[in-house]
């Protein structure tokens, strides 16, 4: 048991470091590389790693390392943006449904259940295909798709706390419904929602990379890991390393986000720690 405790701690630290590096790359890519990710050098396509280009160049002679670093931003923008959208709407819907009950419950909860009738990547593909790709569209689409994850959780949590004495007290003190929801209920259900947010962010990133891979996500020439993998796949037999770097970046980031999310989940629910 102790040994796995150490393994856990190491895993948490490594994951946190990976996520931190990805965040830093998204916020301040210039701290990692001075090279322009969009600048083409037609004379040196597929330059070998080393020298001025640490990981070599791609099919247009663009620096792969610079594209890798700059590629972090769209992925994280979509991951965080869509979770914020889904979290805000889902929480609002869930709290209203859970606290007001009756007709409100039916309207809010059934409407978010309808989203669950569609396989997520299918709906995302459909909307992105017709509406057009791009980061802002992805945030809206994935945000919409993830609303039920938050609305169901917020609903269940609200049901659990709404009979609490502090809610009674707030009502007795003459607080309006809005005031009660905001100051009595929301702070008490925030924990699980934040945990859900961290896991949803990882899965949003997964969905984004898949859509970008299909050409329905981040638009070229902007660097994006999913898009880079799609391109590198075509040159897989000439330069196998090219496909390896974005794959590694994507896998490591999502894995780290999931690991951190799991840690949060264990922390929030002591019943799970035993497992």
């Amino acid at each position, binding site marked *: 048991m102790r040994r796995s405790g150490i393994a856990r701690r190491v895993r948490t630290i490594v994951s946190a470091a990976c996520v931190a590096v990805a965040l830093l790359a998204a916020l301040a890519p210039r701290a990692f590389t001075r090279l322009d990710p969009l600048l083409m050098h037609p004379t040196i396509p597929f330059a070998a790693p080393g020298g001025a280009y640490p990981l070599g160049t791609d099919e247009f002679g663009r620096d792969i390392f610079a594209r890798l670093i700059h590629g972090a931003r769209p992925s994280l923008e979509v991951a965080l943006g869509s979770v914020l959208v889904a979290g805000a709407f889902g929480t609002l819907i869930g709290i209203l449904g859970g606290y007001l009950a009756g007709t409100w419950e039916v309207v809010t909860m059934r409407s978010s259940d309808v989203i669950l009738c*569609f396989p*997520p990547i299918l709906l995302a593909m459909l*909307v992105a295909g017709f509406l057009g790709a791009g980061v802002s569209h992805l945030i809206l689409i994935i945000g919409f798709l993830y609303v039920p994850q938050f609305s169901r959780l917020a609903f269940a949590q609200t049901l659990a706390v709404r009979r609490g004495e502090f809610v009674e007290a707030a009502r007795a003190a003459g607080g309006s419904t809005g005031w009660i929801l905001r100051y009595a209920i929301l702070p008490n259900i925030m924990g699980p929602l934040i945990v859900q947010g961290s896991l949803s962010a990882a899965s949003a990133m997964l969905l984004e990379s898949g859509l970008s891979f299909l050409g329905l996500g981040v638009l070229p020439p902007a660097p994006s890991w999913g898009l880079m993998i799609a391109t590198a796949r075509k040159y897989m037999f000439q330069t196998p390393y090219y496909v390896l770097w974005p794959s590694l970046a994507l896998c490591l980031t999502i894995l780290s986000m999931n690991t951190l999310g799991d840690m949060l989940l264990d922390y929030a629910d002591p019943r799970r720690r035993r497992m």
Partner: protein
Amino acid sequence: MAAALVWVVATLVFALLHLLPGDPVLVILGAEGGAQAPSPAQVAAVRHALGLDQALSTQYARWITRLARLDLGVSLDDATPVTRDILERLPTSLELICAAVAMALLGGIVLGVTAARFHGSWTDAALSGLLAGGLSFPVFVVGTLMLLVFGVLLRWFPVGAYVAFTEDPLGYLRQLTLPAVTLAFNLLGVVGRIARGSILEVLHQDYVRTARSKGLGEARVLSRHVLRTALIPIVTVVGVQFGILIGGTVLVEYIFNWPGISTLLFTAIQRRDYPMVQGIVLVTSALFILINLLVDLSYAVLDPRVRYEGRP
């Protein structure tokens, strides 16, 4: 209830495609993004032929009544009936999904039992790491790397055109292996996790201790007492995943050139083939709802407490 949901989905699909920008008439006349704009008379003629000039309510009524007769219209691309194309592609997808689900289910149970038996050890940690990988690594990355290693470098499995089982059974199975394993690895992340958690929980139950203290062998305890109960959440998650995969295997089908329903949808979206998109989304969503219904029903069958009732 399920029928009502299918109706809601049909209505939503209708609404969605009318809300999204783009005009099928221009697609038919081959002028999307328009090199030369067709004359207004041409546009009006096609619009009338398709019935798109009628009121929205009339169009909606027609869509629903046709649907009741399982008529999904014809493809804008080559005028084949949408239903026929779907029936042709759907089984191919289902073959892939069934193979992957079977592998993931088996693997998940084996992994879950192993991890639970060696709970807290390095083996458990390593297996959990594998499961986390399945959950976190994008399926298209895993697929690409598998194709690179086993298809191209080692040449163990063929890379190329799909062969039907009836034509060449062995070739078909070799063709199926890589995509199915890719999909199964991805699924394993979800299934194995639930399996591990659920088996761990059951292992600590009193009745399992009772079974052990009766002197039953470990294998018998696991198979007859632990797995039986632990299987309920596993079946639930497999059912849900199965539903998601119908229409959701697009990445795997795309990478491995598997002619399934997802790739059909992908090309239909790219070609703005409205009736085809409408039909596929409707069929996959209906199957999704149906499978969720079956999962709900399976609780009653699987739950030992229900089964043991009525026995002496």
